[in-house]
């Protein structure tokens, strides 16, 4: 297990270096002087010169990259062009809100997706099965921002049951987490269904039935435990998707997280913030994928020997 763990962790290192390289190069591909871009149009010549020096722009590219990584490791991602706040502070303030939203969405997605998938598999080829699968397909086909706007229209504008924007209380969390979790619920339902169907065909399930166990017990004690292994992976991977999917949901609900920060920064061409937000989201995404692989390997020993 530990050998697999080390190997998996080591594999993530070049990916993270690659991600940082893309973010580093990004600013250099945009037409114009990177120092001027980083300083903003209103900056004085002195500020531009300082930035040029701090980024090492007059030195060869590999050195510039080393400086970039050095700053990154010191936790220095530069300052926002608009409020001059350090990007790291801005991210530290907003990241917990995005995580809260993503975790709440994951709970919503699992609570809907897993039971729906089990229901569908145990009633295989019935009208209920078809209905669940059509709803699931509609769930993955629906633009997440459109679902969010519709929920605002119904529950905030018309019924006045829930707030449309804000992030202070748990009530503010309901509409955004349902919006963000809906597509994941659909994916989890499809995965749970196919995994359950696969397991229900296995010999040990037939044995359990043959020895006279009641069907609910067969499903719960014998099938579900095995069927949930791949589902755990999908749920874990969905968490990564949810963190990035928050870009849209946060924009709809004015949720002050990293996703909304990124979109605002792109629209305002606030490059240091764009770099910081992209790095943070992608690093978390890669880390989550590694974590999911590890959990999967712990749950299913067969994986480690492949």
């Amino acid at each position, binding site marked *: 297990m530990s050998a697999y763990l080390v190997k998996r962790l080591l594999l993530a290192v070049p990916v993270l270096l690659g*991600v940082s390289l893309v973010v580093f190069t990004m600013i250099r591909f945009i037409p114009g002087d990177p120092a001027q871009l980083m300083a903003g149009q209103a900056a004085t010549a002195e500020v531009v010169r300082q930035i040029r020096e701090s980024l090492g722009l007059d030195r060869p590219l590999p050195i510039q990259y080393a400086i970039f990584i050095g700053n990154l490791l010191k936790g220095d991602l530069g300052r926002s062009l608009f409020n001059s706040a350090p990007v790291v502070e801005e991210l530290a303030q907003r990241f917990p809100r995005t995580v809260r939203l993503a975790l709440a969405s994951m709970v919503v997605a699992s609570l809907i997706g897993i039971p729906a998938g089990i229901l569908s598999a145990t009633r295989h080829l019935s009208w209920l099965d078809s209905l669940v699968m059509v709803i699931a397909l509609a769930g993955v*086909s629906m*633009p997440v921002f459109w679902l969010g706007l519709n929920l605002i229209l119904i529950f905030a504008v018309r019924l006045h049951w829930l707030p449309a924007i804000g992030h202070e209380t748990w009530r503010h969390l309901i509409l955004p987490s349902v919006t963000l979790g809906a597509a994941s619920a659909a994916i989890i339902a499809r995965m749970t269904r196919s995994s359950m169907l696969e397991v229900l065909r296995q010999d040990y399930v037939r044995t359990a039935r043959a020895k006279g166990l009641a069907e609910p017990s067969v499903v719960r004690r014998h099938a579900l435990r095995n069927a949930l292994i791949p589902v755990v992976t999908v749920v874990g991977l969905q968490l990564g998707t949810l963190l990035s999917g928050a*870009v849209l949901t946060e924009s709809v609900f004015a949720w002050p997280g990293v996703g909304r920060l990124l979109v605002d920064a792109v*629209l305002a061409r606030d490059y240091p913030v764009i770099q910081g937000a992209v790095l943070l989201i992608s690093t978390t995404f890669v880390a989550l994928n590694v974590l999911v692989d590890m959990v999967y390997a712990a749950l299913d020993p067969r994986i480690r020997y492949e």
Partner: protein
Amino acid sequence: MAVLAIFALSGIFAAWLAPYDPYRADLEGSLAGPSPQHWLGTDELGRDILSRIIYGARVSMVIGSISVAIGVALGVPVGLFAGYFGGRFDLLSQRVIDVLLGFPSIILAIVLVTVLGVGLVNVMIAVGIVSVPTYARLVRGQVLSLKTQEFVEAARALGAGTPRIVFRHIFPNTLAVLIVQTTLQVASAILSAAALGFLGLGVQQPTAEWGAMLSTARQYIQLAPHTLIFPGLAIMLTVFGFNLLGDGLRDALDPRMKI
């Protein structure tokens, strides 16, 4: 299939089908609800929403097909060569793909749009590039299993050269999974482009693009909810159609994948 047929026909014959010019503003008739004159109502500038949705089908069709073509054109050759030749090219291409997959797809699209700038063409390029790793991985996996099969060995024994083996014997056998993936990818490309349009990072106004239409409609959610409902329905039904077709094709072409 019916939904997709309507989508395709709307896109192709938009000029004949649309009851009004999708760009003609009529400020006096703005934000009007559905009526016999304007079946789906009008938007904030008094433009006919049905006509804009019909023209929007054309925009989505172009985005879906061109971005998928970009993904196929770049991803398939990489997958073919990496899988067949292995070695350094394989190693290098796999690491690049690992890095691209290290970005969540919407984030990668946003990074590309930041560099390239907004607008229809750049959205197609961004959405296309995002799909490259998927194609490369898929084809590489197929080639790895195909190249050890007997029919490839037979071709080699008969003296067929490498290009002939790769393009005449291996590539046609990857087509089934490629067609399924492409269908599903069109759905995902339409969704991604709409998302970028909604965020203001995609196709810009006044072009009749579904995501951009929703972006404007959100400001009138209280006054004119119809401006929000219909463009969203158009996206959902089209994407639903492609997803359904993709699932159906997968069941038909590869019964083992049937769920």
